[in-house]
């Protein structure tokens, strides 16, 4: 018994004497639980190695037949050792470092892991569950399908999610750059890195192993070489990052890399892929039994964690790798009962048999050999996945039995074994046990050669169809261990060569990556105006309007808030409006092109309403445009449209090259609308400027100083009362607001929110783009023909399309309506004609001022006559409404002009 073992626990029973490069620290035992029972390992163990050392072999159960699963590759490539760790399902324990107190559980069993009740599917299910059996069963009676489905769903899936799970781990991201990024830190990768560094390039090496060295590390002598090479690379200035996973190889040298909870987003001038090889299993009956392992998996157990993998081993190999494993096994005191070198003779008839899922003997041509460990080594395949994802072709080299990447994308190179330089010659196509039962091709999905041949007989005779029908390669190993073997089985069964069969498309990610890491930090920025906290202090009920947070209202009665604006004085924060400065000698001419109406003739100091359309004449956004001076316009846009309008302007000017510049000032400036009969008096209290009806007329724009702050004031009337919209730097917003309130206290100033504003604008019949219009609305059918000026010297964007609408005639019209019965339709309520949908209500509110239910609706033109009747579905019943053209409140505009 090795030192460090704890008496009474099975912590270290199968540890060997200290190995030259072992990773465990025997002075530091680590305790954790497995299926609720205490287990010990050492620091430096992975969960998988600690469990194996403690004598545990069965870690989980397989997807379909619930066959026992345990360690196979010890490299994170296969998915046989997936377990639930601390409530997180599908963790590959062979590469997961052991943590003290970790709660480790098996997956996909009913009852106990050792005696899974569902393993009956393995004994009995075979004949009933060929590939795609679920497509042929449970069809009738249809009403029973939900029940069947429930059973199927419960049988599928691996680990269980914690329903109370939450994001607890902090993740971070970092943008990085390198001249050369080397993916794979084996001999070839490190050599290439050192060479590049010598040439003066900045070089980073990524490796998925616990340290760089790749294939060298499997070998005792190789470890020394690897560490010397790593030192040399570091000395040359190469940055080595391990363990780290290149998630994918995207265009223009973009490589996201996962390093624990850190996501590095690399851009590299050159990417060198040195990803080495993936060891391949052999296909024979019983090849998925516990104890049947890949050669480097066995060597890692011995050399990394000083574990004796078994007592008596059989080695079946198509290449040199199996023999190397045999050497290490012998050195570790494992008896080598038999070595079958597939290169020496015709592939024999091999079958592994076992008890309770563990291998107990190997039958070779009928002759039995007792064993508890089988090393299987098919010819290794270049690990070309990243290259194929990036767009390289993959061609089959029949002489060597490997798939080789060709036609590499730009600025991507490949070195070492991934290029097909896999070392010693192997048997090209080691498909064994082709005729036997339970020869597993795909361990993740429990698919056998028989299943694949069955699919072919059913007509799923191409690899892409087969993949989808049998689900081979679709499991968590992403085809690493089954892709090539499935192609071989197909080639053999269809008598076509592997190149004709082809490969399935390689997809990112390189290895399964947690969504939490990719998501980054949990929250996205939310937008708040500079008056946000003031609104909260005033009791504002904040609501989400897109990314913005805005006060809905400041109490329970938005109607009363609206009434207060009619009667006295209201302030609303409209800082969310888009604010774009358009400046340059061509500014006016530019706006003439993007807007249907004319702005070049707008007088300095005046404003004009504008609606933007796309080139298909569809309404995009609206706002007020003010002319500041000859060359400068101040354009406002809707709260959600600001970025889109700015983009739209710059996009068009990239075509027109006009002498005009744009600045998006949306966040930089705050805006407050001061409205109501007392608005003028309020402004006169806080400003020395002329706010008189003559000096500051309706639709004027003026530079004024309010509360000591120089600002732009627009006299506009969205809410239908005398009002001034003040635009000024955001940091001064609270000061300006507070000053107006304080100085005008006797004028009864009150804040009003978005909801009262909606009532007020509806009383005026003002539209809200996106609510009263949709993505197909045009100016004519939205009842804004007065905006269309087709006599401009340059065709405005959308002119042609709007003319087409004019030519065809209007099908719809946006109109106002009131509800004579007082019945309140919902917004979106359907206008019905003969029981059929024929138009809709776009806005509706109760107006206290008018004592009526009023709204806007899109009606067939025939119905859109003032005073006309139409029906809207209200609570499922057609309910009469009356058309009202023009504003409901102050139709002559006397209030706004007062």
């Amino acid at each position, binding site marked *: 018994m090795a030192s460090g073992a704890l008496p009474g626990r099975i912590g270290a029973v199968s540890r060997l004497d200290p190995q030259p490069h072992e990773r465990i620290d025997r002075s530091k035992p680590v305790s954790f639980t497995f299926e609720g029972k205490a287990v010990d390992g050492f620091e430096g163990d992975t969960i998988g190695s600690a469990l194996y050392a403690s004598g545990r072999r069965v870690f989980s159960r397989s997807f379909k037949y619930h066959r026992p699963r345990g360690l196979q590759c010890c490299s994170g490539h296969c998915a046989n050792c997936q377990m639930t760790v601390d409530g997180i399902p599908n963790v590959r324990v062979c590469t997961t470092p052991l943590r003290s107190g970790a709660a480790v559980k098996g997956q996909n069993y009913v009852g106990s892991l050792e005696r899974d009740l569902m393993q009956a599917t393995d004994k009995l299910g*075979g004949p009933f569950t060929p590939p795609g*059996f679920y497509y042929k069963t449970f069809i009738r009676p249809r009403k029973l399908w939900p029940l069947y489905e429930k059973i199927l769903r419960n049988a599928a899936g691996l680990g269980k999610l914690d329903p109370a799970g939450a*994001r607890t781990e902090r993740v971070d991201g970092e943008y990085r750059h390198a001249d050369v990024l080397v993916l794979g830190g084996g001999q070839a990768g490190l050599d290439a890195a050192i060479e590049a560094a010598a040439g003066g390039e900045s070089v980073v090496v990524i490796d998925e192993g616990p340290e760089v060295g790749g294939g060298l590390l499997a070998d005792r002598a190789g470890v020394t070489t690897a560490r010397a090479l790593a030192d040399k690379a570091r000395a040359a200035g190469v940055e080595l990052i391990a363990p780290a996973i290149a998630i994918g190889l995207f265009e223009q040298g973009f490589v996201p890399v996962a390093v624990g909870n850190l996501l590095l987003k690399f851009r590299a001038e050159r990417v060198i892929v040195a990803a080495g090889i993936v060891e391949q299993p052999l296909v024979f009956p019983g090849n998925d039994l516990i104890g049947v392992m890949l050669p480097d998996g066995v060597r890692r157990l011995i050399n990394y964690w000083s574990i004796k993998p078994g007592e008596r081993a059989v080695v079946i190999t198509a290449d040199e790798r199996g023999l190397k494993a045999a050497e290490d096994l012998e050195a570790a005191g494992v008896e080598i009962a038999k070595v079958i070198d597939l290169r020496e003779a015709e592939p024999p008839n091999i079958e592994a048999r076992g008890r309770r899922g563990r291998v107990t003997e190997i039958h070779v041509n009928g002759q039995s050999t007792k064993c508890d460990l089988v090393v299987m080594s098919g010819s290794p395949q270049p690990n070309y996945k990243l290259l194929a994802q990036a767009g390289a072709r993959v061609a089959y080299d029949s002489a060597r039995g490997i798939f080789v990447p060709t036609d590499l994308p730009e600025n991507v190179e490949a070195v070492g074994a991934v290029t097909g330089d896999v070392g010693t010659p192997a048997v090209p196509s080691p498909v064994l046990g082709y005729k036997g039962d339970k020869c597993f091709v795909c361990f993740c999905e429990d698919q056998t050669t028989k299943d694949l041949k069955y699919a072919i007989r059913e007509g799923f005779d191409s690899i892409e*169809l087969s993949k989808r029908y049998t689900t081979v390669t679709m499991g968590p190993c992403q085809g690493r261990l089954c892709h090539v073997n499935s192609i071989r089985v197909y080639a053999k069964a269809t008598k076509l060569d592997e190149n004709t069969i082809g490969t399935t498309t390689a997809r990112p990610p390189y290895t399964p990556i947690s969504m939490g890491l990719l998501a*980054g930090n949990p929250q996205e920025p939310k937008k708040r105006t500079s008056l946000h906290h003031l609104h909260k202090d005033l009791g504002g009920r904040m609501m989400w309007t897109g990314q913005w947070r805005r006060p809905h209202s400041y109490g329970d009665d938005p109607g009363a808030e609206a009434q207060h604006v009619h009667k006295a004085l209201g302030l609303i924060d409209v800082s969310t409006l888009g604010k774009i400065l358009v400046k340059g000698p061509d500014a006016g001419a530019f706006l003439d092109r993007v807007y249907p109406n004319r702005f070049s003739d707008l007088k300095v100091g005046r404003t004009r309403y504008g609606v933007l359309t796309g080139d298909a004449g569809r309404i995009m956004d609206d706002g007020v445009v003010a002319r500041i001076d000859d060359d400068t316009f101040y354009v406002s846009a809707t709260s959600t449209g600001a970025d889109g309008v700015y983009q739209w302007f710059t996009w068009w000017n990239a075509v027109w090259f006009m002498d005009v510049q744009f600045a998006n000032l949306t966040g930089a400036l705050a805006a407050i609308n001061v409205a109501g009969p007392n608005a003028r008096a309020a402004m006169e209290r806080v400003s020395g400027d002329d706010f008189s009806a003559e000096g500051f007329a309706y639709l004027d724009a003026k530079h004024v100083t309010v509360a000591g702050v120089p600002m732009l004031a627009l006299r506009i009337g969205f809410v239908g009362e005398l009002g001034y919209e003040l635009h000024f730097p955001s940091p001064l917003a609270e000061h300006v607001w507070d000053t107006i309130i304080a100085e005008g206290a006797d004028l009864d100033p009150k804040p009003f929110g978005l909801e009262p504003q909606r009532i007020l604008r509806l009383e005026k019949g003002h539209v809200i783009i996106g609510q009263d219009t949709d993505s197909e609305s045009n100016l004519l059918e939205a009842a804004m023909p007065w905006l269309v000026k087709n006599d401009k010297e340059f065709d405005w964007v959308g002119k042609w399309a709007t003319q087409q609408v004019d030519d065809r005639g209007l099908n719809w019209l946006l109109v106002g309506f009131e509800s004579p019965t007082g019945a309140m339709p919902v917004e979106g309520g359907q206008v019905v004609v003969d029981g059929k949908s024929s138009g809709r209500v776009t806005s509706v509110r109760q107006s206290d001022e008018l004592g009526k239910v009023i709204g806007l609706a899109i009606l067939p033109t025939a119905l859109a006559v003032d005073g006309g009747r139409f029906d809207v579905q209200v609570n499922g019943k057609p309910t009469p409404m009356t058309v009202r053209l023009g504003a409901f409140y102050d139709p002559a505009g006397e209030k706004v002009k007062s």
Partner: protein
Amino acid sequence: MKDIFLKKQILKRPDELKRHYDVVIIGGGSHGLATAYYLATHHGITNVAILEKSYIGSGAAGRNTTIIRANYRTPEGAAFYKQSVELYERLSGELDFNLMFSQHGHFTLAHSDRSLVVQQERAEVNKLLGIDSYVIDAKEVKKLCPQINISTDVTWPIQGALYHPPGGIIRHDAVVWGFAKQVTRAGIEIHQNVEVTGFDISNGRVHGVKTTKGDVSCGVVLSATAGWSSIVAKMAGVPLPIIGSILQAFVTEPVKPFLDKIIVSAQMHIYCSQTDRGEFLIGAEVEPYPTYSNKGTFPFVEYACRHVLELFPQLHATKILRHWTGLCDMSPDYSPIMGLTELDGFLVDCGWGTYGFKAAPIVGVTLAELIAKGKTPALIEPFKLDRFYTDTLVSEAAAAAVSH
């Protein structure tokens, strides 16, 4: 082992192309196959060839996120998709192939009051057509889908949702194979790995199709080629108002049943369901630029993960297994383009953008009727190509963009 299920081959490769077919359907996806199926079963037309340049279901039919629903916004769209859902409900039995149609309900989340209005409008349209669809508040969302996070301490708090109980997911490949199986049995030929290279056109009429495996003459050609439809139509000299963009999706590793609802958020640009195999299937909005490249982009994955975890933080350690793209043929009004074109005998079925799969059976029924009778069925009258000349578009953007 006795083959208790292996009674007949499901798919069969026909011999060489014949010299003449009454109907040639380009594209072996769900639409082409469905049309062939209804040509045979409703109209007895079986001298039909389906030409597929790759393998059946290799395009959008095998890349979509398998959501079936009828809760569209326009009366035209909703009436059309309603029939599609009803056909899908019967289809497993009809095709004798279990399509695993799992109808556990579809939620279109609203994160603002504006969005709630849009959902309300859809509900009103739907109700009038007898579609089971209504607006619920955040608490009801939580009641029906207890796994979801309705906290207000997130960027996009849930304000409510349009709930559509018959909405569901289906096994998309099974739809392709089920149709293919019955089409094959009806004697219709499915030619895979045959690419169309041109058309035989004279006097304003198409007379035949040129392919990589030889030329064939035919009475009618239907192009049901989704992402490639404008390329195929261009060969026939028919311009289409189509822009190709990619749409991306990914699946995670399988876990035990966690979510049986379909959750869609237009504002967060994601949709999420869990397949019968246990994988989460998550997709997003089309990429904002036109392309024929089928390469995925990484920012999409980051963005989709961030948003899914706002709704389901429990998935934080769930791992992405496979990420892919599909090519979408976007029409200007987010509604399909179906039927006759200016070239006699050349019919199109395109503009399906991100929502074609859910319409497969009704597309098949209506196009088969059009081919057999020569007259456009009323149900697809609004979707004529002609509408772009008469400007009578069907505005489906509000319910089609990211509302899978």
